[in-house]
């Protein structure tokens, strides 16, 4: 009995108890939960639950968790690995699809861009052309206007000159007619006076002749 008591209270026994009930459960549990996937909440849950388990039950409880982790955690890991593999395949397939879609988009974009460019070019070119044409036409019309204006001006001047000339001619004719008329009138009056004087002289001669006679 004394030997048993000595064995129980010996340093190796104390060390063994400390290891089995103190250090080992937590250490082993932290290793065990590594079987669960990295983002699995069960990792933190089991470690937290360990503190709720009485120390005397911890070694057995941890051993139970080893069983759970082997069948649940490893199964999760395998399924996660499979999901990753299939996900990569899908991603590769999606990447292939993306490349095809990218090519299609680039092609369609290039064609559409070319057509849009042509359209814009036509519109801009037409605008510029129309502008240039309008500018040229405006210039031409301006020149025509200038010429026409000049012509009109010249015509007007010429017309004016012609008018003046015609007016002068007409006036000259009128004056001449008037002068001629006046002269004629004067001559007529003079002739009449002369005729009258003559008649009067003839009459006076006649009277005198008669009187004398």
């Amino acid at each position: 009995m004394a030997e048993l008591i000595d064995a129980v209270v010996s340093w190796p026994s104390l060390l063994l108890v400390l290891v089995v009930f103190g250090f080992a459960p937590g250490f082993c549990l932290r290793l065990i939960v590594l079987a669960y996937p990295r983002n699995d909440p069960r990792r933190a849950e089991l470690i937290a639950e360990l503190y709720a388990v009485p120390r005397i039950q911890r070694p057995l409880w941890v051993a139970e968790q080893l069983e759970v982790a082997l069948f649940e955690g490893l199964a999760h890991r395998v399924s996660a690995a499979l999901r990753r593999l299939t996900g990569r395949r899908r991603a590769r397939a999606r990447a292939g699809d993306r490349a095809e879609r990218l090519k299609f988009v680039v092609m369609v974009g290039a064609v559409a861009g070319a057509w849009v460019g042509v359209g814009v070019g036509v519109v801009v070119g037409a605008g510029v052309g129309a502008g240039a044409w309008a500018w040229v036409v405006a210039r031409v019309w301006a020149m025509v206007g200038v010429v026409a204006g000049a012509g009109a001006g010249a015509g007007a001047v010429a017309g004016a000159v012609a008018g003046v000339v015609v007016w002068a001619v007409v006036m000259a004719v009128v004056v001449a007619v008037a002068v001629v008329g006046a002269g004629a009138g004067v001559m007529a009056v003079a002739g009449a006076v002369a005729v009258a004087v003559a008649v009067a002289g003839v009459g006076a001669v006649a009277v005198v002749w008669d009187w004398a006679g």
Partner: protein
Amino acid sequence: MTLLEDPTGQHWGYELSKRSGVRSGVLYPMLTRMLDEGWVEDGWEDPTTLREKRPPRRYYELTDEGRLALGGVLQQARTEARFTGLIGRFA
């Protein structure tokens, strides 16, 4: 059944295991399935409210759907003789 003893309370894995007598190797997969089904929802203790030096624990709460579903299971179990002993405390 243990969850229905306190349908609105928070439950912990080890506590459920002790009260129900179900080993953790069976209990945790069951809880995972119930979470997937939407019968229970989980959460973590608020670390600021902890008095002991330990990490926050994960708790489980029954949802309305879970309460209805477990109630239905309980109702069905009452009709079967083999569950009489199990559901005697809920009768």
